[in-house]
């Protein structure tokens, strides 16, 4: 239950008086308060700073240090206060959590010290409110990375038993791990540079041929350049094949950008080898040589910055798209205007609208080559408007892109954000797990006979102690309220169908099976043995259930037959042994698969004592309500926390 609403529980219980005249059955007895003592102040002395709060405030979260009896270990008899030798600044946040129900993470606090304090006081960090959770997670991740980086610097020993393939891959990905890898890294880098320079120098004119024509070096020293090219391509091919061999997932490797660049870089050479000096295709061949320039992209393996740049451009795609779109719009508008403005003048270069595109682009980007200039007055006016607006149109989206780039450059870990999405679900799951306690508590209390129908079973001191141990007063009162509601919704004393809160899955199952079995009665009686009963008229033969832990406590709940003064006959129920109390998460009682003795008379008591689920909830359907996990468990959704 949320902290704030705990204060309204008395109101909710009082409002239940509206059900009383309508109910046909006597209500269960209310849990006796812990001797109704007045709410008292507690003094918590944390390293000398005294915090005072009501005891009730701390009792709101019974599974934390301060809310449970664990704090008694810190009680100082002489000063009558609880002393904690911890950081008082962080304790402020911890105490505010009890007061307001929300845990905040102060930004100035060191993340690891905060975590330690939370662990000490038994508070899970997933409870941090949404306002502070992002910050908390970011800091935690940064910290973890920093620690990991430090560790990586220290760890140079390679893990033993790596296959040759894994060694190679590791060498490729982390060149600094071994000397061989480093050598390889530099050699490939050198050859990339050589190859690029070769491509460039190939086109430089050097010297003249006999017939006074400038000849590019490539044609003059064909053989030399060809040898260089061959050497480079051979190196690149070998490198590519080695990477392909070493890659853990070849298919994925082949799909990656870097490998595509590699392939594109070396393919033209092979295609050139295959093709002969056929005049028809030589034009195409020339085009292919352009792709050799892609070898320069291979440098991105060697440069982190280049990779980030590429990544940034990819992530700024929408801003770039917007820039492009607005430019296109403006270009078309101005080109049209200029065309029609210059149509009149003779010898105008603006022969068509597409021809005017060139002028518009050059003007808007303030290049101004001057190969096309307007001659009419209207043209000049519009031309000036064009250049002025060009500045604006370009200047607007560019800062967005720039800021994007700088943001990403600083936190170049997009993959972690994707992981954070998954962690959101995991976080909810963890909160649910830790709060299983409260949801199970309803069933615990039921089972432990807190809802016994006869007054004489309520106030044995033994039971009181157990009550105190197992569930807080707030919870027991809440459960009592829910139990009253169950009792109210019995339509008539003659047709006693006691509806119990059950889990959704249980409901669906029982609905299905009930439909299949087609029994006349919808309120079968149950026989209960050894702690847990719990079948309806259908059998659950498919489920394996662990046998119950043996009950060590005395039988608390007498057969309900004795309790109800019921007009019709009641089914005899065997004694129910109560399990020893334990905290919710550790109790391991599963439903026993017993053949339910069916009783087809319609007016039998239904006392479905639902067994308690135990393993932590692993579903993460993002639902705020606590839903049950595996199908064979029943959780009563008591409190949405």
């Amino acid at each position, binding site marked *: 239950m949320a902290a704030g*609403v705990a204060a309204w529980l008395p109101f909710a219980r009082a409002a239940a008086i*509206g059900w009383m005249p*309508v109910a046909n059955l006597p209500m269960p007895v209310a849990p006796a308060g812990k001797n109704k003592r007045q709410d008292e102040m507690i003094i918590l002395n944390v390293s000398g700073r005294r915090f005072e709060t009501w005891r009730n405030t701390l009792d709101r979260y019974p599974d934390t240090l301060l809310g449970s009896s664990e704090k008694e270990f810190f009680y100082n008899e002489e000063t009558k206060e609880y002393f904690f030798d911890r950081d008082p600044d962080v304790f402020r946040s911890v105490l505010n959590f009890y007061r307001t129900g929300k845990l905040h993470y102060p930004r100035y606090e060191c993340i690891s010290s905060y975590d330690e304090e939370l662990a000490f006081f038994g508070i899970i960090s997933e409870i941090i409110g949404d306002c502070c959770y992002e910050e908390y997670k970011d800091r935690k991740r940064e910290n973890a990375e920093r620690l990991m980086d430090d560790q990586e610097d220290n760890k140079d020993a390679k893990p033993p038993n790596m296959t040759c393939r894994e060694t190679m891959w590791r060498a490729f990905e982390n060149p600094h791990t071994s000397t061989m890898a480093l050598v390889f890294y530099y050699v490939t880098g050198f050859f990339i540079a050589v190859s690029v320079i070769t491509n460039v120098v190939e086109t430089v004119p050097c010297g003249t041929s006999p017939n006074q024509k400038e000849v590019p070096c490539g044609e003059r020293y064909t053989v030399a350049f060809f040898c260089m090219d061959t050497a480079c391509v051979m190196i690149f091919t070998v490198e590519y094949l080695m990477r392909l061999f070493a890659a853990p997932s070849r298919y994925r490797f082949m799909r990656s950008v870097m490998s595509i660049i590699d392939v594109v870089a070396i393919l033209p050479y092979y295609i050139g080898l295959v093709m002969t000096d056929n005049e028809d295709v030589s034009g195409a061949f020339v085009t292919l040589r352009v792709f050799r320039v892609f070898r320069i992209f291979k440098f991105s393996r060697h440069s982190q910055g280049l990779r980030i740049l590429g990544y940034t451009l990819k992530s700024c795609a929408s801003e770039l798209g917007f820039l492009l779109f607005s430019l296109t719009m403006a270009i078309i508008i101005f080109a049209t205007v200029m065309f029609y403005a210059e149509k009149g003048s003779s010898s105008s270069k603006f022969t068509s609208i597409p021809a005017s595109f060139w002028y518009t682009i050059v003007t808007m980007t303030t290049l101004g080559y001057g190969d096309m200039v307007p001659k009419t007055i209207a043209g000049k006016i519009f031309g000036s408007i064009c250049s002025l607006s060009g500045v604006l149109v370009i200047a607007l989206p560019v800062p967005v892109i720039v800021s994007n780039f700088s943001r990403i450059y600083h936190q170049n870990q997009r993959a972690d954000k994707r992981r954070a999405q998954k962690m959101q679900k995991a976080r909810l799951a963890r909160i649910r797990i830790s709060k299983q306690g409260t949801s199970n508590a309803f069933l615990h209390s039921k089972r432990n006979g807190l809802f016994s129908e006869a007054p004489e079973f309520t106030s044995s001191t033994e039971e009181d102690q157990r009550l105190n141990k197992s569930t807080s007063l707030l919870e027991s009162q809440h459960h009592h309220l829910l139990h009253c*509601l169950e009792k*109210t919704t019995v339509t008539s004393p003659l047709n006693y169908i006691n509806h119990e809160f*059950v889990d959704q899955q249980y409901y669906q199952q029982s609905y299905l099976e*009930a439909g299949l079995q087609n029994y006349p009665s919808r309120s079968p009686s149950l026989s209960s043995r050894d702690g847990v009963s719990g079948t309806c008229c259908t059998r659950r033969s498919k489920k394996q259930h662990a046998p119950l832990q043996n009950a060590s406590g005395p039988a608390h709940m007498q057969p309900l037959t004795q309790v109800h003064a019921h007009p019709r006959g009641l089914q005899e129920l065997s004694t129910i042994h109560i399990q020893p109390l334990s905290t919710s998460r550790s109790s391991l009682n599963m439903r026993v698969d017993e053949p339910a003795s069916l009783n087809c008379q319609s007016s039998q008591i239904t006392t479905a004592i639902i067994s308690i689920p135990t393993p932590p909830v692993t579903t993460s359907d993002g639902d705020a309500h606590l839903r049950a996990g595996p199908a064979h468990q029943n959780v009563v959704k008591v409190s949405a926390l």
Partner: protein
Amino acid sequence: MKSRSQDQSLSDSRELDRSYDPLTGSTADDEELSAVRYRPEGLDPLVQKTNFSRRELQVLYRGFKNECPSGVVNEETFKSIYSQFFPHGDSSMYAHFLFEAFDTRNNGSVTFEDFVVSLSIILRGSITDKLNWAFNLYDLNKDGCVTREEMTEIMHSIYDMMGKYTYPCMEDNAPKEHVDNFFQKMDKNNDGVVTIEEFLETCQKDESIMQSMHMFDSVI
């Protein structure tokens, strides 16, 4: 011209801001500032008006103020608070009826005084007072008698709180059956309505109801 364009631009930005409500002409911020901050009159008058002790009133007010810092509860808050206690079902209708019963001045908000006065009747009043209060809850139009339709609505709202997932499955006519039983029990002269006298009479003769009315006395 300049001033007009300034106003124009201001209104444009306000529209974009979305906190501006063109109907009332006030921004959301203004509304929050002018929210009602209600204070109860004082501890002593309340002690006199109700049967609570000073201490109990203090505890009650602290809880009240924590959840409703503005000093009044409106129906939405009421419903949301109540629904936290019944997470599996839909308690909004019953909360609505409760709100109507608490809102004795019919102005759509429950102040601390209303709250405490009603609680005092429920928890510290005489049995007749409590039954009267319950009757008032059922009597939706406050005309002095509970008709079948009113009772059916109340019953539906109670059954709604149980939610869908019950064992055994809730029949659809369970509320109706329950209402029939209720009327059979309470409506002595069979005129189709239950008046306050019939109600009081029947309840006072029923032991279990009498007993259960006292059950929550120690709640505060």
